[in-house]
């Protein structure tokens, strides 16, 4: 069983090789866990970013069986993928973050978290695992 406090530790493992922040959130954009370089800025950024990424995923994924979305922005690059069928994972870094790394990390982490998160979500445990 995946313990909730282990989640930030797992997300933190992705934050290397150009990836600066990793976050897990619901389809409605509400954050479950986020780990990033600059803790203060992260709190401000992460909530807005997760809401927007959730919207983007909803728009683009409904056009078909999307499994990853990558964004190239002026100030950074982001990758979004689905985890356990119902949650979303977003990794982002600065403008020099290699896309291949972003996509691979997102897919690998999603695959790793799939089984334990599905178990938690499926059992209706949600976020109150004590």
């Amino acid at each position, binding site marked *: 069983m995946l313990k909730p406090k282990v989640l930030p530790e797992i997300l933190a493992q992705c934050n290397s090789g150009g990836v600066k922040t990793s976050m897990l959130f619901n389809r409605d954009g509400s954050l479950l866990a986020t780990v990033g370089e600059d803790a203060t800025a992260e709190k401000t950024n992460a909530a807005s970013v997760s809401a927007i990424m959730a*919207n983007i995923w909803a728009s683009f994924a409904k*056009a078909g069986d999307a499994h990853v*979305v990558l964004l190239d922005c002026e100030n950074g690059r982001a990758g979004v993928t689905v985890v356990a069928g119902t949650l979303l994972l977003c990794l982002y870094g600065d403008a020099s973050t290699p896309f291949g790394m972003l996509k691979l990390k997102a897919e690998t982490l999603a695959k790793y978290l799939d089984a334990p998160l599905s178990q938690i979500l499926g059992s209706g445990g949600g976020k109150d695992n004590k």
Partner: protein
Amino acid sequence: RPPRSTLMRSSAASDVYKRQGINAEYGVLERVPGLRAVYVCDRDGVTLLKALAANDKSDSDDEDVSLAAAFAVSADQVSKVHLRRVKSLATFFSQKLVVHINVLPLVVALVAEPDSNAGLLMALAGDFTNALESLRDSVEQLEEK
């Protein structure tokens, strides 16, 4: 947003483009392996120009351009956070890769084989921005009216 006579404005812009003889979209089709189609749309998803690869038999135009309007909305939203302006967005489907490029008020949609080089397609943002400059200006002027 009030309804606009988008079709009339879009065809006027498209005529300007054709008169200027720019065919960046055709050049790109030849240069990039796996690329099936290039669409240039306005922010509402109305197609102004399209170019299909010679051997492309698919007729899923509507499907392929339906995301252009969503991209325009997403680009506006993302610009408000620290990531700032979206240059391009790649969506990986099992049967295709779709890359949208921000040339707002224009949107370029590139539809490619699923194993195509997404990084290469996204890196075309600069080329398309340059090639579509006058069409973009025309559409901007028409939008202001």
